[in-house]
């Protein structure tokens, strides 16, 4: 194992100048030489599709891979609320600096200043790009773009397309990539999943993939490999992620030498529909834009049996408004989630299982009328009614927090390059921009920033010196060995012949993760998880039951491989959460809180990125630290009172 050096490669200069300086100093690839380079892009969501389209447009030869039947299915499509940008179109005091500041503060000071500033800088280019592509953003009657305030921001900087912003942005990126496919610069491999990352001579040489229709294992080599494979909330089994979202690409890269940063930084989204039974396969998010007009409350006393309409005003506890008078229902996600949990733990939860809090629109209907509410949130109200069978115009919605987004991911430097040279991670798959908590409407921004405006510049730095060198042949022994390992792994799952299904194991793992590494963590619980996960993993390896073959469509077999990696990641998440003896953002250690019950950071000891090196299956990882230096933002106790 080569010694790991964590050089973030942050450029010189003031925060405003860093990106300009860097763009001037990175090596360029001559336009005519770009076609001599091959780049593999894994994943075709917002980050992957925008990167593939842009790299293809620049003239690189791109091979893109998705496990979906079409890139347009990626889970970016489900993002509802919007995308932030520092346009200040509404003249309410926004600026690049303010977006940068809010994002660093919202992340509870655990992100890298230089990356976040760059994100804020390119945010405006994204809106221009997407509008030009035909993304039908909401408009005002004068024809100009509309904005709304969103999830903890005190300015209106969120652009949106009804409740389907992610869908429209993804379609823009997908369509841009479709054009490059037609032009021949991008070759798409659909229904194909990454199984391994291959290194030759200390550099990413390519990937091993599995055709999900035939089970065929094959290798592809290139000059660089880009992972745009999203987040890992499905480690909790129940989350707002799509069913197929998984950590496999990032985890396999980690096993091959890429460090994994801040794995315990996961975001629990406050406004999801509570689960109704144990067969629940996923949790559905309701956009937190609902918090702009809905008021969150629970009955003032435990074990309330009256219907919400029968509980008089003075017997209700609008707990967010009570505790946070200045932000009220618009406090950041981590704060809103944890407070809902506190209420439910006190027995004040509502609904048949007592596992929700009310999100009530009665006041808003009285203030602006049902018609306006219908215009703003009609599709969300319809979704709610379809799922619960209740009409939210008549009775308050019930909501509960659910795992939603993972701020942690592969460690990357300012170039978005992992610790494996030539291997990049973009979008939710990397760790760099959101710190310990992501603000609403910032995920779409980051995915597209990385794909359209950052990676296409920074990747040249690593490609330029390789001019004239062909990609490693896929007949290289390193590829052959990785292929064999992959075949053995899949044959292995089928050979176990046990008694428990993949979903059973996944559900059990999810329970451990949710109970001990979910909204609240503490030493006792984490130590318990660290002993239970390997035991359950041993059972998984001994008692798993997967039917069918490895040579045709086999969805259980696909899931088995993904859940295998979730087990290993879950253990690392718990180790990371245990090591971080402080509370910050979405990471709340009950031992570390202020007298008012807020997250208590320890900047003297934990203002660093925890980057873990793989040290063997189910073995404790090796911790490396990147100290976070704040030259512009003053660290304060976050307060939303």
């Amino acid at each position, binding site marked *: 194992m080569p010694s790991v050096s964590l050089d973030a490669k942050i450029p010189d200069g003031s925060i405003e100048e860093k990106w300009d300086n860097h763009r001037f100093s990175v090596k360029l690839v001559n336009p005519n030489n770009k076609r001599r380079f091959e780049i593999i892009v894994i994943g075709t969501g917002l980050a992957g599709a*925008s990167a593939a389209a842009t790299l293809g*447009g620049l003239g690189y030869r791109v091979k893109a891979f998705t496990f979906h*039947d*079409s890139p*347009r*299915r*990626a889970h970016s*499509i*489900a993002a509802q609320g919007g995308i932030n940008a520092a*346009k200040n179109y509404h003249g309410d005091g926004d600026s690049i600096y303010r977006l940068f500041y809010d994002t660093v503060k919202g992340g509870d000071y655990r992100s890298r200043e230089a990356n976040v500033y760059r994100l804020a800088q390119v945010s405006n*280019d994204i809106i*221009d790009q997407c*509008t*030009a*592509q*035909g993304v*039908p*953003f*909401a*408009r*005002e*009657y004068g*024809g*100009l773009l509309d904005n709304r305030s969103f999830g903890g921001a005190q300015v209106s900087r969120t652009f949106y*397309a*009804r409740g*389907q912003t992610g*869908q*429209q942005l993804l*379609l823009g990126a997908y369509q841009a990539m*479709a*054009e490059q*496919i*037609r032009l021949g610069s991008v070759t798409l491999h*659909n229904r194909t999943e990454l199984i391994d990352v291959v290194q030759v001579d200390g550099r990413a040489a390519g990937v091993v993939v599995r055709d999900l*229709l035939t089970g065929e294992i094959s290798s592809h080599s290139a000059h660089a490999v880009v992972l745009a494979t999203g987040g890992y909330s499905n480690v909790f089994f129940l989350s707002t992620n*799509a*069913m*197929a979202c998984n950590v496999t690409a990032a985890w396999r890269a980690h096993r091959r030498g890429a460090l994994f940063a801040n794995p315990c930084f996961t975001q629990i989204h406050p406004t999801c529909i509570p689960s*109704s*039974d144990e*067969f629940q*396969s996923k949790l559905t*998010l309701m956009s937190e834009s609902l918090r702009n007009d809905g008021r969150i409350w629970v009955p003032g006393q435990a074990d309330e049996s009256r219907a919400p309409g029968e509980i008089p005003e003075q017997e209700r506890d609008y707990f967010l408004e009570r505790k946070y008078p200045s932000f009220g229902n618009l406090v950041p996600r981590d704060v809103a989630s944890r407070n809902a949990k506190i209420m439910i733990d006190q027995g004040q939860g509502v609904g*048949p*299982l007592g596992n929700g809090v009310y999100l009530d629109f009665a006041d808003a209907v009285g203030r602006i009328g049902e018609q306006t509410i219908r215009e703003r949130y009609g599709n969300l109200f319809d*979704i709610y009614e*379809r*799922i619960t*069978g209740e009409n939210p115009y008549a009775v308050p919605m019930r909501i509960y927090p659910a795992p939603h987004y993972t701020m942690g991911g592969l460690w990357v430097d300012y170039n978005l390059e992992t610790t494996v040279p030539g291997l990049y991670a973009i979008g939710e798959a990397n760790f760099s921009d959101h710190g310990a908590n992501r603000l609403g409407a910032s995920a779409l921004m980051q995915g597209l920033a990385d794909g*359209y*405006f950052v990676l296409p510049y920074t990747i040249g730095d690593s490609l330029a010196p390789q001019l004239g060198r062909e990609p490693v042949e896929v007949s290289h022994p390193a590829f052959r060995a990785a292929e064999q390992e992959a075949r053995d792994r899949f044959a292995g799952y089928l050979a176990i012949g046990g008694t428990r*299904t993949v*979903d*059973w194991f996944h*559900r059990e793992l999810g329970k451990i993760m949710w109970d001990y590494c979910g909204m609240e963590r503490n030493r006792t619980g984490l130590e318990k998880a660290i002993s239970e996960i390997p035991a359950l993993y041993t059972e998984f390896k001994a008692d798993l039951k997967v*039917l*069918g073959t490895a040579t*045709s*469509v086999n969805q259980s077999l696909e899931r088995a491989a993904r859940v295998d990696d979730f087990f290993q990641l879950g253990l690392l998440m718990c180790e990371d959460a245990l090591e971080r003896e402080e509370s910050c953002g979405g990471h709340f250690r009950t031992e570390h809180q202020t007298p008012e019950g807020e997250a208590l950071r320890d900047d003297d000891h934990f203002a660093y990125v925890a980057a873990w090196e793989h040290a063997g299956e189910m073995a404790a990882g090796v911790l490396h630290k990147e100290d976070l230096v704040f030259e512009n933002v003053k660290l304060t106790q976050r307060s939303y009172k």
Partner: protein
Amino acid sequence: MTVTDPEQQAPSLSTGEKHHGKMLHLTLQVWRQDGPHSGGRFETYDAPGISEDMSFLEMLDVVNERLAEGDAEPITFDHDCREGICGTCSLMINGQAHGPQRGTATCQLHMRQFADGDTIVVEPWRATAFPVIRDLMVDRGAFDRIVEAGGYITVAAGSAPDANLIPIPRPVAEASMDAAACISCGACVAACPNSAAQLFTSAKIAHLNLLPQGQAERYQRTEAMVDTMEQYFGSCTNHGECELACPKEISIDFIATMNKDYLRAKLKNRRYLSRTT
């Protein structure tokens, strides 16, 4: 074939205490097909203990868990987001694309739409352009071919003008968004007696052609996409089944828009060509 009798259910699958909804006992007739080139058949499954709060796909999850427990291979079906937006799920339920509820994709259909004792027939999309891969999973790649033919606005990253440079009247932006809401599930094709893809294709064309940004490529786009569509799909004879089946309730008015633009394209594209050659 009866898969499970309620007494034999594994403890993890017991239904009971945690439910507040009504329980249903259903019979499923499901299309099973081992591969693209093998013959298919209906299999009958007894499905007791289904909560009306489950989604249709969660019901299939439960049936699949029981099948696996009984050493029978689970039913293959496409699905992903389970929020009605990715367009991956695709089932003919009792002969209706996405089942009985209007404006609802299969993943958002809940079992309270069915009654205790019902028999439910579950089939894959049926269209030549969507060959069956296995069981209920089909290949909808033809949709991607149509988009690749011209379903985009060419703009290199970094070359766009300020987003507020071109005001777009709100009704125009809203109409474009109505069309852009398509999730590419293929229900329109599955519901059409001709397996035509006019609703899908016209929605994409209208989304882009309605916007000022889409004008430069408007007619090349329209001709290329329609011609590609016709390589794969049947012809539209105005049945209107597509609109009824569409989970996003996209209007067939867009088909008229597309036909008008296609007619114009046939003339205008020749004129453009004569100018440039």
